């Protein structure tokens, strides 16, 4: 093991589960990220193309809420789409509009977000009246559900039709998954069907177990962040 995940300033919500899987960790934003599990890189990528889950919790995320939030973000050069859609930003971040008064900002797969760095550096209570930050690093866990069986597996846990023909790349569903409130965003990785799931960090271990249990019949298994990065780098 490359790094003791408990030695970092921020405790990863799933580090015991990932440790038990033999994860190799690296620090991302002060938290241990499971870069790879015990399988080799090729095997993990093949797993991710078929059916897999990966913990993305250490990656950068945030957002703004309030009656002026969307206008304030647009004033900072942020492109925002319709409700429950996501817009890719030039720096690799993505912005999901959750309501007329809220946007969620997701950073890139390396753990950065130049956009979040910029808007968080600009924001102040006085200069952005009616737009308030929604800090999500500690309150939310984040995982990727990847592979050709992802939509079929999610149909066991979620009432919204997430099949590719009904749920476009970039679409957002704010719904209930395994009886927990969650934000589900389709975000294909290169050619591979994939979804982001963001849910309460207090339920991270519960959802992790539920999802691994549900993907069992599709031979699904956890993979490391490296496999997600590798698939994302492939041409769509």
């Amino acid at each position, binding site marked *: 093991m490359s790094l003791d995940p408990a030695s970092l300033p921020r405790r990863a919500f799933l580090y015991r589960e990932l440790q038990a899987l033999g994860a190799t960790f690296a620090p991302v934003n002060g938290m241990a990220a499971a870069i790879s599990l015990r399988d080799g890189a090729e095997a993990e990528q093949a797993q991710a193309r078929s059916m897999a889950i990966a913990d993305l919790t250490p990656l950068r995320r945030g957002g703004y809420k309030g009656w002026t939030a969307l206008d304030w973000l647009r004033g900072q050069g942020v492109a925002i789409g319709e409700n*429950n859609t996501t817009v890719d930003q030039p720096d690799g971040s993505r912005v999901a509009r959750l*309501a007329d008064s809220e946007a969620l900002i997701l950073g890139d797969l390396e753990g950065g977000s130049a956009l979040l760095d910029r808007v968080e550096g600009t924001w102040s209570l006085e200069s952005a009246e009616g737009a308030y930050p929604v800090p999500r690093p500690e309150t939310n866990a984040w995982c990727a559900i990847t592979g050709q069986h992802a939509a079929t597996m999610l149909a066991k846990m979620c*009432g919204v039709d997430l099949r590719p023909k009904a749920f476009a790349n970039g679409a957002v*569903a*704010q*719904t*209930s998954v395994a009886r927990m*409130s*969650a934000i589900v965003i389709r975000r294909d990785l290169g050619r591979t069907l994939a979804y982001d799931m963001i849910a309460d960090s207090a339920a991270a271990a519960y959802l992790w177990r539920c999802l691994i249990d549900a993907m069992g019949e599709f031979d699904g298994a956890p993979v490391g962040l490296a496999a997600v990065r590798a698939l994302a780098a492939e041409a769509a």
Partner: protein
Amino acid sequence: MKILTCPLNGPRNISEFVWGGEVKIHPPLDCTDEEWAAYAALENNTAGVVREWWYHVPTAYWIIAERDTVKDVILRTYPARELFKDRVDYDAPAAPAAGDTPRETP
């Protein structure tokens, strides 16, 4: 499964929502204690078409639904801002609470 259509999120299992009580007309801010207690605590419990608050839990979003309690059907849902345009100014107790008085629905 009963479906309730959220104005923000579309048709969803009604288990994603929490009932929030009847939509009631805010009494004038200089009302009597009895009028305020009735507003805060009493429900009409109408058999027929009612207008109710519903809360979509995953998005923390309050909406209004019109529902027929006799036929057990949901007639219409819409954002609360269709009825409530302005904030109530509680610093002006003598003024009528016009901002929180629902307009008649079309």
